[in-house]
């Protein structure tokens, strides 16, 4: 083909394409205009009640014993809000878990009454009063929340290592709470009295001994400085302890990036003294979590978080504990878990979520916790597919590290489980 003919042909083809592409787009638009909506749902009937059942089967690879051990769990999760008129509401939220296997002395059937309270909002809607078991949670941190002052003892059952899923099982604290709201801010005051001495191993007990075993009070001031920055200041006091202070901040850094910071300072015994019930001195120390979340246009969100707990064992103290009294390492880790505390002085968290991975309704969530002292790691990954009323998930968890490390000392080396959740 001669050059002139070839270039003429190319020109015609290009001109043809330029004409065709808008025509195709116009065809697609005309096709779109032929589509019909789904019938409208009747939200009134469904919006006040939430109910789902969840089943899990799994296996755990053991570190100290040969072979694997089987795991299974069945759960029923229910919450409901009843409107009583004149701004009054009653809220109830409950979860029933049947778990196998369980730790010695712990019931295999555990009922967690997470919330049961009365709420009143006057017509002006600038105030809220609540009385009963309320799940009051603070802090923007992903994996560690120093300003979440009502977190200790609030987890009755551990069904996931995912910090977000863990919070779903959390027990509320019985309290009287008032909140005043104004444009761009609010002030909340809560008082939680002592109602029992110690936690109950009875699966059907309300377990007020876990959440209300001492008198406590919290004041929280929320201020929005601009559309990009908001803060919370908190003051917390419990009986026989010095007041603790906390602050948190979230900021929009760009179209795709958000930062969060969370800090608290209090005077209390260190975590090991608490774990071993030793009369430790109360020292003033800090707790901190700070991170950045970045989201790509490809539906991938990545969070990197640094965590610090001044009350936790330093790496050298942890190593010394492993040498002198290795059994106490597990006691210490259990106490850290019960209090939802960071067991190491410093740690890192990488949290990733990818929506629509290959398929529209397939989501990937994964995180990696790293102990900054001994470099042991907890890796967790979940693939979850959604159908209209059903979720199917596969989870894999790996504890990586040598035997003297935080994650390497745990009795399970790995956990694999399949979950099915049906939403009514």
């Amino acid at each position, binding site marked *: 083909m001669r050059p002139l003919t070839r270039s003429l042909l190319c020109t015609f083809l290009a001109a043809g394409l330029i004409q065709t592409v808008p025509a195709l787009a116009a065809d697609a638009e005309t096709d779109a205009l032929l589509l019909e909506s789904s019938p409208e749902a009747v939200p009134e009937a469904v919006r006040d009640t939430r109910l789902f059942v969840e089943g899990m089967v799994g296996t755990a690879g053991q570190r100290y014993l040969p072979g694997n051990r089987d795991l299974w769990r069945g759960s029923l999760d229910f919450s409901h809000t009843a409107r009583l008129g004149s701004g009054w*509401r009653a809220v109830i939220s409950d979860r029933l878990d049947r778990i196998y296997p369980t730790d010695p002395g712990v019931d295999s059937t555990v009922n967690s009454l997470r919330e049961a309270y009365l709420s009143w909002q006057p017509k002006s809607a600038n105030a809220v009063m609540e009385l009963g078991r309320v799940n009051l949670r603070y802090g*923007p941190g992903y994996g560690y929340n120093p300003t979440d002052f009502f977190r200790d003892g609030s987890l009755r059952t551990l069904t996931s290592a995912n910090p977000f899923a863990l919070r779903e099982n959390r027990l509320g604290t019985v309290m009287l709470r008032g909140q005043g709201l104004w444009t761009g801010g609010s002030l909340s005051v809560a008082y939680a009295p002592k109602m029992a001495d110690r936690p109950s191993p009875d699966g059907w007990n309300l377990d007020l001994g876990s959440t209300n075993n001492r008198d406590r009070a919290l004041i929280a001031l929320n201020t929005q400085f601009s559309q990009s920055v908001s803060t919370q200041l908190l003051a917390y006091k419990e009986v026989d302890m010095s007041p603790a202070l906390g602050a948190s901040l979230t900021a929009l850094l760009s179209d795709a990036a958000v930062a969060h910071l969370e800090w608290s300072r209090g005077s209390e015994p260190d975590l090991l003294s608490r774990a071993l019930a030793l009369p430790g001195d109360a020292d003033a120390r800090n707790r901190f979590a700070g991170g950045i979340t970045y989201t790509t246009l490809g539906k991938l969100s990545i969070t990197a978080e640094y965590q610090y707990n001044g009350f936790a064992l330093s790496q050298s103290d942890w190593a010394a504990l492993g040498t002198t009294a290795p059994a106490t390492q597990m006691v210490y880790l259990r106490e850290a878990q019960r209090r939802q505390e960071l067991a190491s002085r410093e740690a890192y968290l990488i949290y990733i979520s990818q929506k629509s991975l290959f398929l529209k309704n397939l989501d990937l969530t994964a995180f990696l916790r790293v102990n900054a002292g001994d470099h042991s790691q907890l890796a967790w990954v979940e693939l979850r597919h959604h159908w209209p009323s059903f979720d199917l998930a596969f989870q894999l968890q790996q504890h990586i590290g040598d035997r003297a490390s935080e994650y390497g000392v745990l009795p399970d080396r790995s956990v694999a489980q399949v979950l099915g959740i049906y939403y009514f």
Partner: protein
Amino acid sequence: MTKKVPPVFMNSRVLSFALFVLGPSLAWAAPSAKEILAASDAIRNPGRPFSVTVTLTEFQAGKQVDTSTLVSYSRTQPQSGQFASLIRFVLPARDAGKLMLKNGNDLWFYDPASKASVRLSPQQRLLGQASNGDVTTVNLAKDYRATLLGEEEIQDGERRKRKAYKLGLTALSPDVTYASIDMWVDVENNRPLKARFFAESSRLLKTAYYRRFQPQLGAVRPTETVIIDGLNPQSVTLMRFSDYVARTIPETWMQRDFLPRFQPE
């Protein structure tokens, strides 16, 4: 001898005079681009606080792949003149009770199960279906400079030919979701008919058709929006609006700390 004024010159002088005298009143008579846009905003959105049920139906290549329902509680913020919205997810059951707050760039997602309020970046919010509300519940006249580009005959959402003003909208600040918008507004009644939403890179993000106009809260408003993905025209979302209700929605509700307490009647 008097110089004869050529008729053409005389005519132009008369015309200039006429334009000088009548010009302002002619300009007064023809609506400005900003006025057209504001009138079109007022048709899409009630001027008082309201709630509306939104049914979203997603299609891929003409096949329905997903459906969801949410209720949006919106009010105009006195300082910005812009809409703030609290969106409560209703269906599917998995998402029931979850909330999203949009007050300008103050974006929060609240999950009642984990009690977690998470600040979102605008890009993070664009991943979800709630962001499609931006093509509907927004006062464009507040955030964009409008230019009248002319009049065109276009196909509307009901596939009928309509004569429309074509408006070119450019963002007044970088904070808004879309850098520029092409908007077609019915010349007869200022109804929004169609819009194309562009990113800063001039990439087409969405095309929207407003249709099924019905009387709702004191005006004839579009009760369905067809949203066609800019990159993949085979990806289409229909947003059906029903149950418009005028409500008392205090400004104090539009903040993060109220999300755990939000229990609308």
